[in-house]
């Protein structure tokens, strides 16, 4: 048999996951840049740091802490989805995807509702600007994850995933956990580190 | 070799201009020394590397089809030519730090002058209250004593500018820091009386190129005399405005005049009622060609109106312009009939 093009290696860390991890490192730098502006503004701010006078100081209840718990639990449900399809259970995959998606939507709605009751806006001084920019871009990323989860749900409904063939689910799960981690950092910074 | 010389000669002719201007402050002398050291190191590296490159190009031209010896590398050689640049870098760093420490020294009793940069000119304010603001036609002169330390406080009214005097081999940015951060300072001691050009060196918008000034260094006694005289010069009292004078109206907004043609009667004084609608400084000045006929005082808006009283003019066509923004949009024709 004459020489063919060399056979491709089977196994090894899947290419789409390598791509997702690389993409997530760029996202780390993006949020890093935004966090840097937060800390820089905080460090050089003369006066009390927080919402402008007239608005209430940031409190973890009744919204911030609950939506944090919602997002954290959505990481668990996401992982349940991944474990389900690794076992080949497409039905359970779909269920857990829908739950995760729902929790994600709850988070975004909660965030949006919080915006309406906070009492200050993006144009209300340095704190307002960095607060809304950071939480806003994080929320947008959660929404992007929700879109991804919806696509996965639709594909799962069509039976496109199996135990051996579900790399898209794994990739989206990496993204989802990342978005959760960013929120934990953001939540601690805004509500505890202050 | 002839080819080599032909390449080098024009380069050498240009090299004369590769040395900094005559340093006119004590700090500039130090900077110039550092420049020469680093330039010398750079020139050495250049001659060595470029020299070898040119040599290799001639010496190793392909002459036959033999394959040269396939050297892949040599660790010892790599170490040597890593160490040599490291040494050069350390020399550069250490000498830079010495120079930096030396030029950053602060003296106890400098002459303090506040330098305010704005789009697109400068105001210099002295401790005794005297201030001068430049305009496009007449850039301001920063008068300083030679031989005594001078400390400039650099304040910006709007965007970032930079205070640059080539003869002092230095510039410092004029930054509109917020939040109570102290303004940048520049301290120098001029070594000899003289006049030295300067201009803004941080791109600051439309007329960045026009933001020039001059530094004039006087002997200390002359400086003291000048400063006393400048502070005590009283502004000419505003003349009382006679009634029944012709009034033309003009306003400025968005760096533009509202009208570009005004008409006034000849042979009698008239009033230019000028409204500055914005926060940017403007004025109205009247020229006959390049001859200044009238310079209105600076008006800082927004929504400030002044009456400029202008002396009688002969019939003809003149130009009115804003000295701070001598651009098309702030130029017009004054018809005097």
């Amino acid at each position: 048999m004459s020489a063919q093009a060399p056979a491709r290696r089977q196994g090894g860390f899947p290419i789409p996951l390598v791509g997702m991890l690389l993409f997530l490192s760029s996202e780390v730098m993006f949020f890093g840049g935004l966090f840097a502006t937060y800390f820089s503004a905080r460090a050089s701010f003369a006066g009390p740091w927080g919402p402008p006078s007239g608005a209430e100081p940031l409190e973890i209840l009744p919204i911030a802490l609950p939506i944090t718990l919602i997002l954290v639990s959505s990481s668990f449900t996401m992982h349940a989805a991944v474990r389900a399809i690794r076992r080949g259970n497409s039905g359970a995959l779909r269920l857990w995807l829908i739950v995760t998606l729902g929790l994600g939507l709850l988070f975004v709605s909660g965030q949006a509702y919080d915006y309406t009751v906070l009492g200050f806006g993006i144009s209300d001084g340095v704190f307002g600007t960095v607060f809304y920019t950071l939480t806003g871009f994080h929320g947008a990323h959660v929404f992007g994850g929700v879109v991804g989860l919806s696509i996965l749900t639709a594909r799962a409904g069509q039976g496109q995933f199996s135990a051996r063939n579900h790399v898209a689910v794994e990739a989206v799960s990496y993204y989802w956990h990342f978005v959760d981690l960013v929120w934990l950092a953001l939540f601690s910074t805004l509500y505890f580190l202050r | 070799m002839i080819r080599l010389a032909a390449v080098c000669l024009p380069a050498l002719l240009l090299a004369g201009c590769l040395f900094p201007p005559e340093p006119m402050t004590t700090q500039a002398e130090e900077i110039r020394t550092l420049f020469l050291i680093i330039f010398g190191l750079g020139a050495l590296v250049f001659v060595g590397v470029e020299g070898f490159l040119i040599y290799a190009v001639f010496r190793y031209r392909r002459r036959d089809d033999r394959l040269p010896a396939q050297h892949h590398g040599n660790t010892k050689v790599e170490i040597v030519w890593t160490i040599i640049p490291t040494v050069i870098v350390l020399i550069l760093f250490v000498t830079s730090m010495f120079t930096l420490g030396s030029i950053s020294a602060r003296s106890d009793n400098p002459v303090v002058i506040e330098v305010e940069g704005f789009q697109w000119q400068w105001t210099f304010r002295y401790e005794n209250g005297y201030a001068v603001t430049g305009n496009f036609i007449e850039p301001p002169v920063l008068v300083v004593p030679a031989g005594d330390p001078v400390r400039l406080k650099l304040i910006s009214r709007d965007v970032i500018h930079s205070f640059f005097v080539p003869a002092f081999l230095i510039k410092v940015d004029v930054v509109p820091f917020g939040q109570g951060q102290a303004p940048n300072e520049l301290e120098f001691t001029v070594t000899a009386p003289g006049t030295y050009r300067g201009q803004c060196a941080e791109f600051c918008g439309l007329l960045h190129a026009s933001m020039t000034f001059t530094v004039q260094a006087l002997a200390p006694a002359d400086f003291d005399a000048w400063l006393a005289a400048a502070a005590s010069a009283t502004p000419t009292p505003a003349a009382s405005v006679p009634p029944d004078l012709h009034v033309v109206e003009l306003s400025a907004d968005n760096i533009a005049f509202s009208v570009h043609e005004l008409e006034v009667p000849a042979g009698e004084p008239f009033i230019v009622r000028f409204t500055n609608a914005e926060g940017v400084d403007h004025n109205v000045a009247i020229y006959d060609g390049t001859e200044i006929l009238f310079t209105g005082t600076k008006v800082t808006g927004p929504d400030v109106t002044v009456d400029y009283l202008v002396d009688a003019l002969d019939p003809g066509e003149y130009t009115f312009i804003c000295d701070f923004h001598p651009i098309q949009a702030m130029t017009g024709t004054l018809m005097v009939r």
Partner: protein
Amino acid sequence: MATTTLAPGSKTYERSWVLDWLTTVDHKKIGVLYIVNAFAFFFFAGLLALVIRSELAVPGLQFVDESTFNQAFTMHGTLMIFLFVVPVFSGFANYVVPLMLGAPDMAFPRINALSFWMLPLGGLLIVSGYLVGGAAAGGWTGYNPLTQEQFSPGDGTDLWIMGLAVVGTASILGSVNFLTTIFKMRAPGMTLFRMPIFVWTVLVTQALILLATPVLTAGLIALFIDRNYGGSFFDPSVGGDPILWQHVFWFFGHPEVYIVILPALGVVSEILPVFSRKPLFGYKAFVWATIAIGLLSFSVWAHHMFTTGVVFLPFFTFMTALIAIPTGVKMFNWLATLWRGSLVFTTAMLFALGVMSMFLIGGISGVMLAAAPVDFHLQDTYFVVAHLHYVFFGGAAMGVFASAYYWFPKMTGRRLNEALGKVHFWMLFVGFNATFFVQHSLGIQGMPRRIADYSADAGWTEMNLISTAGAFLIAASMVPFVVNVITTLLNGEKVGDDPWEGNTLEWATTSPPPTYNFDRLPPIRSERPMFDLRHRDDPNLHPELAHAEIATIEADS
């Protein structure tokens, strides 16, 4: 057993040439699209340079007003960096890297196409400023508060921000693609340390793009929020910090300049060995030097801010000077490659040598600027303009032309005319030095940058005239290049797989390659598989082959 070709023999599936190029996901076509798009922006930004140099030839405003001039240098810088010199190397890399790795395409072909098409979109957004009352005019560095709404009113700056965000996102997607391809799709036998050196420089470049560009995106978004939503990031009048913009911008901006130059240095490292018939001296040292430059590039950003008064000068002077060391190591390795080589001066080789000479000058002027007290005098003067053009143009752009002459035969099956190529090279070399060497002097004498006009009694007129003459010579030098490309495409000298006796795998297939790239690959035992193949019967070279590792998976034989 007969081999079957994989290219379709029948004409049952045919579509128009235009639709093919618009919808292609083939890395080779996408590479060509990148290169053509980049050159279009190169010529436009070059025209803007001629506007600048024409105006500055003598004192007085002869041709344009200040506003037009300020837009011209802003757009010239922005377009040259973001729409020419970075994407053109993405284009060459797109074409060449999968071939050099023995791969059939990039890891994500459709994202590859998306990354390309976002470029003309972003570029058009930036340029459309001219149609809405004025393009961005705050310099390519967009310093605040100058680019805030009250000092830069109008849509031009907003379009500039949006266009750059699109271009930036495109390059981040591209970097994910390149890095995945390099890590995962190398042919068997090609360990990381047997990759061509050009692939190494692409690897580090793309890693820098991946990690630095998002910071720019964050900054651009922050500026957009300031301008349009009442934000307080950088505007001191509402509590913001104008210096914060400079930190964010330069944290990206400094790695950006290495993103620009590293691929060019990689191309030189491919061309020198081929045309000296010797391997790259110190391949491993070169790899480590490239990685060191990449890492160090994140630690020097504030050397652009020495005169702001708020920077810790000793640290940044030290780290900036430190980068000279790995850069010097590379230069010396190149010299050692030439040493006792058998040199032939094709146009590609001339441009590679040009890169070395010009980058040397640019590097030296950069190290001069690293010394903070010297920078106090030279910052924001024409000395910096000279420095950046020696590295960006003399280094990177000459590297672009080196790549063009070197890989044109592979891409088209025809070799560019060497006589015309040499005319192009010498005109460009003389014109370039005439334009920019005097600018060192102009800066040292105190001429600031970004000024539309200067005083007649400053003493700068003669040097400006020389510089302008050089600029027109550069423009003229493009004529033989364009003529060469057109006539060669129409009726140039045809070549086979390996016209240069190259070292790397792109020369192991036809010119141009088939869609699937390779029918077969030679054994990969070193960074020069084609050289090894050509000299496999040379008894003097066997010892090197004897030390090679055996690939873990071998093709059927």
